[in-house]
């Protein structure tokens, strides 16, 4: 690392065994042009204070482990760079709206349960044996859901969502995007099973259209658009139910 400067990083610290509330500690970290914020934290852990706790793994913005608040904005620390904040300083905190486990690590359980609740797997019209080969799916059909399949479950959108902050019962951006991903897949007919989840009070209707989730999403998933499309579908679904038996709108 061709070091050329130092920057101040202020980090939220909280230890569940000893602290009654969080506090902040400041470290000085040398950095070069290519030093990521994550590498800054790793420097602290390696050299200054081995007790600093945070999650990371891939270093390439694909595993979704390293989301934190950097100066109040949800971001992936492995693809944000210290130089962008120099000569100012950084304040790093755990993702907003989620319970702190320790220091910068948040509890992901609520999200994982929500993810599981939307039946995030293909529910096929009829079972097809593997020996019969793949389903046909044109690039246009794939395009309809692909963007929503690119979610890395980093939870930045949950930290951005004011509605989730108020009421963690809200299904939230990424889970709704994933629900929309499966509903829009030409191989899937599970929509009728999933729509009751959407229609429930904590589904799409809780969203107040702030759109900040899409702004912070590092993968262009645009969860806000999935939420809105679900609102439209949800209305249609409601309407069709008076006209035809359930499932006939497929």
């Amino acid at each position, binding site marked *: 690392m061709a070091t050329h400067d130092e920057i101040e990083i202020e980090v939220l610290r909280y230890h569940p065994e000893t602290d009654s509330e969080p506090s902040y500690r400041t470290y000085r970290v040398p950095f070069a042009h290519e030093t990521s914020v994550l590498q800054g934290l790793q420097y602290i852990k390696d050299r200054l204070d081995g007790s600093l706790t945070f999650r990371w793994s891939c270093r390439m913005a694909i595993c979704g482990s390293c989301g934190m608040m950097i100066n109040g904005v949800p971001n992936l620390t492995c693809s944000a760079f210290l130089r962008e904040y120099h000569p100012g300083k950084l304040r790093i905190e755990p993702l907003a709206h989620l319970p702190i486990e320790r220091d910068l690590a948040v509890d992901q359980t609520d999200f994982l349960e929500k993810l599981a609740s939307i039946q995030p797997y293909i529910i096929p019209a009829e079972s097809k044996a593997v020996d019969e080969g793949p389903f046909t799916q044109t*690039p246009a059909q794939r395009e309809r859901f692909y963007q929503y399949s690119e979610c890395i479950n980093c939870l930045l959108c949950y930290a951005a969502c004011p509605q989730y902050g108020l009421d963690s019962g809200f299904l939230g951006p990424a889970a709704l995007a994933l629900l929309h991903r499966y509903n829009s897949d030409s191989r899937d007919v599970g929509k009728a099973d999933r729509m009751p989840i959407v229609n429930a009070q904590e589904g799409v209707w809780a969203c107040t259209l702030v759109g900040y989730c899409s702004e912070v999403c590092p993968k262009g998933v645009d969860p806000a658009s999935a939420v809105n499309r679900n609102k439209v579908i949800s209305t249609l679904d409601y309407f069709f139910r008076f006209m035809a038996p359930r499932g006939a709108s497929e």
Partner: protein
Amino acid sequence: MQIVQTDVVIVGGGGAGLRAAIAVAEADPDLNVSLISKVVPMRSHTVAAEGGSAGVVQTEDSLDSHFYDTVAGGDWLCEQPVVDYFVANCTREMVQLEHWGCPWSRKDDGDINVRNFGGMSTARTWFAADKSGFHILHTLFQTSLKYASVHRFDEFFCLDLIVVDGRCQGIVAIEVATGEFFRFEARAVIFATGGAGRVYPCNTNAGISTGDGMGIAFRHGVALRDMEFVQYHPTALPGSGLLMTEGCRGEGGYLVNKDGYRYLQDYGLGPVDPSPRPKAMELGPRDKVSQAFWHEDRQGRTLETPLGTAVHLDLRHLGRAKLLERLPMICEMAETFLGIDPAEAPIPVRPAVHYTMGGIWTDGDTATNLPGLFAAGECSSVGIHGANRLGSNSLAEIVVFGKVAGEQAARAARAAPAIDARATTHEAEASMQSALALLGQDGDQRLADLRDTMQTAMENGVGIYRSAEGMQTACQTLEKVRNDYSRVRLDDKSRAFNTEWLTVIELGFTLDVARAMAYSALQRTESRGAHQRLDGYEKRDDEHFLKHSLAYAVADAPPRIDYEGVVITKLPPAERVYGGMARQEGH
């Protein structure tokens, strides 16, 4: 200590572990599965795989051709019956993933699309843009949620196996959030713990790829096979080691030196076609392409960059539209990490450690030599990669053999004798005490220093080219680090979410893996695949070394290295031929 009674424990929530979990659930929904992973499964390293996964589909392609490419690519150190099974089952597993929703890239008519990959005679690599591993992993994870018998223990760190009466009867784990110990009693255990790229300083791997499963199994007398074969991927970013997938070259990218010259033509990989033909030039196998870099570097024909010398991966001629369709993540990474638009400028790249060809010895059915223990995925050596893995064979491996492991473990669990609870308690207590001792110990050594010393020793002594002297120095340094390890002092003495503690335990495993690699390498006095020597052993020596190495742990001494023959059924050893003279598809 908390106790969990279960039928099958699977350690690892990557592609291999998840595929195994689904296989157990499908084989017998009455078996209780505990899926243990130190990260939430979709964070596993499989997520980072970019290029794609092999499976014969084109009409002009054949299983024989995939077999030939794999065995020749592995420099004949492959178990041929296992390769046979592998190539015959890849496509089936790719279709299975498709049925589960994996968004494979398609042709205009809606059929599966395939791309070229290094060392493969024809296009047979299934891809989902350049996020193939990401989509495979999320598809498997989401699909696994369907199965009620699969119970996840996310962020549980496996510390040890419980072995009683020569039989594996469970594992000991630490719950990361609380630091509490758990004893899992099981009738069968599958290790799917991934690779060990973190043995080296500059690697393409995630932080979690520390070789834990290999280290744990090794300590229990299980053999680690072919550990000297460590793959350098030729195209990683200098410094960070972040990967620029071989798919870049599969789509037609060039490698050029500082003079803009496609230098691979000087290393027996020509002829120079405008778009490289299979097995030639940029589509040569990884060992040869990385070795060519080494020579260019020696001769001063590489570029200086702030983070080391490099050559250029030039994608400009592919055009922006194709780059965005086929290699969107590469474009994003080049932009984020280098500030480069690959449609406008070439990407500086150099080799970095990427893949562990060797691993926990298993038979073709994924059984290790410890009854009750199975292994699959990158942590295992089932015998298909030999001395050099072909790109796109390992994503296929994790699902093909993940499934086998699940089925075999289900069978073993049903047949296993009752668990001896008293004896397992005793064993688990002992592992717990040694982990707690690390937490409490006083000393003068810093974790990061030991890690850095180990990694540098491996890069310097057991790199792309090797000599006895360099390897001996590496071995000596590793023994010293091993001694110093007992004097590591942690800053953090608490229990809840203590990642410093877990990292020091991991380092212990990584260090054992490094030793197995270095000593196996030192004793192989020939050059084959990814193991290339410069000290008078530059040639392949089939007479003495058409053999797998087996590293066994020895108490307080270097590992013992044994050898085992290679099962050759239909393709006798021959010269590996690439470039214009290479055998093409459907031979």
